[in-house]
């Protein structure tokens, strides 16, 4: 697996085509006059065939981003602005479609077909009274109305073997499968219609590490074969560094750093990313001292002025309380990475701290 990742990280990111573009997305909770601003102007691009990891503390807006981009956010969630462009047709020059301005009918048709989701706690998403084969076939039948029953049954068996479950388990009930197998069934179901984008929202949180790894390796393997793109949400940053090509780190409803997985791991450029990476032990390489991030995530209803991270930041300057940093190139001007921190502004900070300039 390490080989695949190095191979992919080697390709120039700019040359790749975007498949899903999130532009200036604003999301709030509450329909009143002052909704909680859960996402504030998030920009994110997912490219074809790439695994994009979303990391951050609990409550920083990772899941909100995934659900808002697919319009699955339950009430009282409210999309307050922005667009989510889906580039469906490959290289045909067709204009992308905005998921947020689709009608209900278009949205229903597009779901699962274009963008599929594996939910948090997916193993409870199966209906206990139906056999899993039937549930897989129902998902296919809903979108491929002209398919025959035999075709669907064949596809269900194929999907199960694809995720490493014996095809004869199509006649099993959900309670007859282990948690890991149910999780795989959900992944198989998400892949049933060969979507271009797969969103995985902490899909393996309830599983043990061995099972987590097995399932993720399988997903990456399938990605290599089928060529879909993955948005992978987790707070397990070490897992993310292993599986993702690119990582976006979120803080208080904003993306604060975005770079290739190895860059984020070896050379974090944002103090928060640095803190996040130093709060867990490395899986490979020399041991290093662990350090957490002091304090807790800010109240989204009472954000500090300027940079939302400044109250917890070791490198805080006077300018941090006045200027809201935006995502831009790093001070070292490295290609293919962005950071939202005033330390990268030569006009404001005399030097970049050693820990962030390695």
């Amino acid at each position, binding site marked *: 697996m390490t080989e695949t990742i190095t191979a992919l990280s080697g390709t120039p990111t700019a040359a790749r085509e975007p498949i899903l*573009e999130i532009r*200036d997305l604003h999301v709030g909770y*509450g329909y009143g006059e002052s909704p909680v601003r859960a996402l504030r102007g998030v920009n994110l691009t997912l490219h074809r065939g790439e695994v994009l990891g979303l990391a951050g503390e609990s409550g920083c807006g990772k*899941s909100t981003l995934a659900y808002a981009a697919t319009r699955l956010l339950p009430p009282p969630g*409210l999309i*307050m602005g922005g667009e989510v462009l889906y580039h469906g047709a490959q290289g045909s020059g067709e204009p992308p479609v905005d998921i947020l301005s689709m009608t209900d009918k278009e949205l229903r048709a597009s779901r699962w077909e274009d963008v599929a989701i594996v939910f948090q706690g997916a193993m409870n998403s199966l209906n206990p009274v139906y056999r899993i084969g039937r549930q897989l076939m129902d998902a296919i039948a809903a979108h491929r109305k002209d398919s025959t029953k035999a075709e669907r049954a064949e596809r269900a068996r194929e999907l199960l073997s694809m995720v490493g479950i014996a095809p004869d388990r199509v006649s099993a009930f959900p309670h007859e499968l282990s948690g890991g197998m149910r999780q795989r069934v959900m992944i198989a179901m998400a892949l049933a219609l060969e979507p271009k984008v797969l969103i995985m929202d902490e899909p393996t949180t309830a599983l043990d590490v061995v099972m987590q790894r097995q399932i993720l390796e399988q997903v990456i393997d399938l990605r290599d074969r089928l060529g879909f793109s993955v948005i992978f949400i987790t707070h397990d940053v070490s897992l993310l560094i292993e599986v993702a090509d690119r990582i976006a780190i979120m803080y208080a409803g904003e993306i604060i750093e975005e770079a290739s997985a190895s860059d984020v791991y070896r050379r974090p450029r944002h103090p928060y990313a640095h803190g996040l990476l130093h709060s867990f032990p490395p899986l490979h390489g020399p041991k290093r001292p662990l350090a957490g991030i002091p304090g807790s995530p800010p109240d989204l209803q009472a954000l500090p002025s300027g940079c939302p991270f400044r109250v917890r930041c070791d490198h805080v300057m006077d300018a941090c309380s006045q200027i809201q940093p935006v995502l831009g190139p790093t001070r070292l*001007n490295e290609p293919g990475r962005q950071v939202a921190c005033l330390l990268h502004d030569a006009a404001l900070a005399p030097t970049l701290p050693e820990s962030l300039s390695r």
Partner: protein
Amino acid sequence: MTAIPVQTDATALTGTNPAPTAAGPRRKPRGTAQQRFPFLRNKKAVTGLVILGFFTLLALIGPWIAPFDPNAISKDILQGPSATHWFGTSHLGQDVLSQIIVGTRSVMLVGLVTGVIATVLSVIVGVSAGFLGGVSDEILSALSNIFLVIPALPLIIIIAGQLPDAGGMTIALILAATGWAWGARVLRAQTLSLRRRDFVEAARANGESTWRIVWFETLPNLTAIIASSFIGTVTFAILSQTTLAFIGVTSIKSWSWGTVLYWAQSGQALHRGAWWWFVPAGLCIALVGMALTFINFGIDEFVNPRLRSAGTSAKDMRRRGIRPRIGFTAIDRSAMATSRRRAVAPPAHPDAWAPETTPSPKSPPTKEPKR
């Protein structure tokens, strides 16, 4: 499921701020009456409460404000509505308005007493049956099944025939005794589903007593069902009471809307074209029924914290095109303007990932200071 932003101690963060006010407008600690009483946000519920309040007031002070003695016979026989007799007079020259006003009390009393007794019975039987399970459940279920098949009206007719004077309270008690069973069955089913939920298991694991689990963990989750079952029972009781009075089973000497209708029927009001005799009583019954239904609409919004915290009126949401639906998140691009806290940077160019040819470090003018 979704990451609802965690509320942290705001003072810990703002405490280090040079100017806490710079953190943007905070939610006002004390809102308007609508924010403090979310029930008032629902126009239907408010309408229902106003109508019901009016009739309750009438029930309380009716006998004192009635312009005439409802029994007093006068020479103005079968007259239409006039300045003296707003709702006209009966075939004996009695003032219909006074009869309606005086009759309100027994109608509201029967409705309220039946509603309270039947609801209390159904909660006790239903929740116990659902929670205890086993033999107790079997017995309580059998009991409610038996009461479910007892027909209320024939029973009352028989009992009223035996009693010398079947007053409002007798009627209310019999209606309550026969009307609780359906609510109990619904509550039992809901309790059965609730007691298996994780938060009840967790409460049990915490060592909470069964009593506390029933009252403080389970019962608040049943509020919507209990409230709507109460409303339903009150409507049923008012209609039954009117029916009984109309067919003359209850004492025809005590005034209620049904008694007015009874006299109108026996006085051949319809035949004589005396519409003022029966229309007001019918309208009153319809109004009370409507008020109760309207209140029912507001109950769900009130007891469901998710809807309560959504924080705006249904009308306002319609205006903004928001429909709270699962699976289709509402979009309101105008919401930004009202709650915007800072100028938003223009969306990053899709080619932002392309390596830049000229080094261009971020310059201060591109950043916009927060308001």
